[in-house]
């Protein structure tokens, strides 16, 4: 069926796959019509998609070093874009983002700008140059550019800290979805999730992860967009919701004014017995508060996410897999395009979901209706039963007010199809999409950590004489160990303490941003400077986190820089330390300077050899 090189057949292969997946969805809809239970459909969706990823993972097995670490550097531009998009969009992006916008409105949308704007930094400051360098891992660049194991080790330290903060949240998400839709306990779900993740990455390393991530992107984008368009058509909001929801956004603002955005006191919430983790609407959807402080809060969050994006190793390493420097650069553009498709839809989903609940003229509306009536709605009953939603009649008038409706943010994406009365097949599809998003990010992160430990620590520092077979065995062993550690921590449900996903961005920007960027853009940067930049940046950032972090000292943030934004003092300290120390010590030798010159030119041989 497929002749010629594997990479030439990719459009055909993934085209067939997409068609097959759509047929599978139709089949599920047919089964649902014929009375197959919702639970069975949920299980079939998860089992079928995970099986496909596992098959791709096994077919992509390899015993070659460059295939294992950088997918043989033959991933075409557009496909690398899709893989990066899946690598990037985590369970949090898929499940929590629309919910965050639902409750946080404009203020929360700083994340949208931050998580897309960062790619401009990746494309103009880093990706093409790191590709030219020819490294296998991000610490590989630091170690070679600045020389010496100390610099390499510092980079590994930052990488592990940032990626591990991120990965437990992902395994946690796979566990939540697996447990809800397969009907198994959360503790077991986490290990089922891990097993599926390892099936994709263990045998084929980066090559296997790349081809499964492309497959996962296709599933997750279909699962995200279908419900949005469907609801918009069904309820008459327009054929292309993205361009037609302006009136609904204005209507929400009018309804907010009519109902009033009331802040409940913590004592009242506690007295009413609202389960933990649920939120209610108290922030305007599209309104922007005046004042420099509010603007600064928005911008500072966007800065942290943007600079953090450009420092996260599991993203940067995706651009090591393209055939050329030119394609690495182009690939960043495609990545952002594929990410954009989901991110510009998230606010639309939040808007649709909000107008459905708020508008009393719609039959889906619940606010302003008698509580007795609302309690009788099927989806409301179900989510209240699992403590994901709650109604507290504060003013005892028997009517549901805006501040009396509580729901977990994550539920917005999962429950919107039910609210709008779509068939259960769509809920199964959304579950498969959420799983794909969490798995693909977890895979990328675990691989980034294991590769840094096996390539940079084991091969470059401990045993440089190790042969290929031994290196790859160590790499795989580490993959399992890191994964198991992540799953173990996730199963203890410590994520509340481990902190927000945003921390991963702050850690990465504190320690890695300036050493990476100045490594390319400032010839004078030297080893002592880079080490100071990494350690002082990470040290100051972490110290500030401990100072303001609500779980730690919980001091009042300085200038509004709270625990989500600790990368700002961290990265500033890193920049200052790096410049001061570099200038105070000897400039790098002639050979290093030549290396930097070479990196700046796209053509010619990479700095590091093909297999190193």
């Amino acid at each position, binding site marked *: 069926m497929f002749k010629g090189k594997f990479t030439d057949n990719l459009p055909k292969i993934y085209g067939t796959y997409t068609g097959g997946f759509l047929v599978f969805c139709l089949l599920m809809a047919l089964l649902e019509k014929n009375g197959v239970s919702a639970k069975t459909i949920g299980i079939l969706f998860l089992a079928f998609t995970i099986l496909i990823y596992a098959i791709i993972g096994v077919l992509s097995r390899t015993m070659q070093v460059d295939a294992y670490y950088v997918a043989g550097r033959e991933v075409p531009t557009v496909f690398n874009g899709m893989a990066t998009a899946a690598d990037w969009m985590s369970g949090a992006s898929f499940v929590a983002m629309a919910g965050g916008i639902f409750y946080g409105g404009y203020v929360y949308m700083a994340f949208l700008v931050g998580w897309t704007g960062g790619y401009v930094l990746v*494309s103009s400051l880093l990706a093409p140059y790191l590709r030219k360098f020819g490294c296998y891992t991000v610490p590989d660049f630091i170690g070679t550019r600045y020389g010496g194991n100390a610099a390499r080790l510092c980079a590994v330290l930052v990488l592990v800290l940032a990626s591990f903060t991120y990965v437990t949240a992902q395994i946690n998400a796979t566990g939540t979805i697996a447990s809800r839709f397969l009907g198994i306990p959360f503790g077991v779900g986490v290990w089922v999730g891990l097993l599926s993740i390892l099936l994709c990455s263990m045998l084929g390393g980066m090559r296997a992860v790349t081809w499964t991530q492309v497959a996962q992107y296709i599933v997750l984008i279909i699962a995200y967009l279908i419900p949005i368009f469907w609801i918009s058509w069904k309820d008459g909001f327009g054929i292309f919701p*993205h361009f037609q929801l*302006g009136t609904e956004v204005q209507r929400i603002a009018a309804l907010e004014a009519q109902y009033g955005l009331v802040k409940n006191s913590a004592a009242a919430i506690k007295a009413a017995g609202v389960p933990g983790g649920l939120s209610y609407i108290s922030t305007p959807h599209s309104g922007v508060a005046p004042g420099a402080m509010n603007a600064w809060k928005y911008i500072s969050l*966007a800065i942290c996410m*943007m600079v953090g994006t450009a420092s996260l190793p599991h993203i940067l390493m995706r651009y090591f897999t393209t055939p*050329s420097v*030119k394609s690495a650069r182009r690939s960043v553009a495609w990545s*952002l395009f594929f990410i954009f498709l989901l991110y510009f839809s998230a606010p639309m989903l939040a808007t649709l979901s909000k107008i459905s609940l708020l508008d009393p003229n719609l039959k889906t509306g619940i606010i302003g209706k008698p509580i007795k009536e609302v309690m009788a709605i099927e989806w409301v009953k179900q989510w209240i039963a699992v403590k994901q939603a709650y109604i507290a009649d504060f003013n005892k008038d028997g009517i549901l007010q805006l501040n009396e409706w509580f729901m977990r943010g994550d539920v917005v994406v999962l429950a919107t199809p039910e609210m709008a009365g779509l068939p259960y097949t769509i809920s199964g599809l959304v579950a498969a999409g959420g799983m794909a998003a969490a798995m693909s990010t977890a895979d990328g992160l675990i691989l980034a950590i294991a590769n840094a430990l096996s390539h940079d620590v084991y091969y470059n520092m401990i045993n440089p004489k190790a042969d290929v077979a031994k290196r790859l065995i160590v790499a795989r062993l580490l993959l399992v160990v890191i994964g198991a550690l992540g799953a173990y921590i996730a199963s203890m449900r410590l994520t509340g303490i481990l902190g927000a996903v945003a921390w991963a961005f702050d850690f990465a920007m504190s320690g890695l941003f300036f050493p990476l960027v100045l490594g390319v853009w400032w010839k004078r940067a030297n080893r002592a400077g880079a080490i100071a930049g990494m350690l002082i940046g990470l040290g100051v950032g972490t110290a500030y986190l401990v100072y303001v972090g609500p779980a730690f000292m919980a001091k009042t943030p300085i200038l509004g820089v709270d625990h989500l934004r600790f990368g700002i003092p961290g990265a500033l300290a890193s920049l200052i330390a790096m410049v001061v120390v570099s200038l105070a010590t000897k400039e790098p030798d002639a050979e290093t300077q030549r290396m930097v010159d070479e990196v700046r030119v796209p053509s010619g041989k990479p700095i590091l050899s093909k297999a190193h």
Partner: protein
Amino acid sequence: MASNREAHWEKTHSLMVLTLAIWFFFSMVIFMFGHEINGIKFLGYPLAYYMSAQGSLAAFVILIFWSSGKQNQIDEEHGFGESEE
């Protein structure tokens, strides 16, 4: 040879500065005036909301495609273009 490299890097450098200036505008400058511009309507959306939901995001996508094309031109001009494998 050396001067060709220097010229190439100089152009690359200017392109980077220009790209980041546009990036700075769409990621920060606009949102400094979030409250002020939100009264303006675009497609019926309040402008600051719209930029945060779609506008700036789309600007970043276009910006990266544009600047990567521009960089390729610079590379070709100076004979550093890569042969397609």
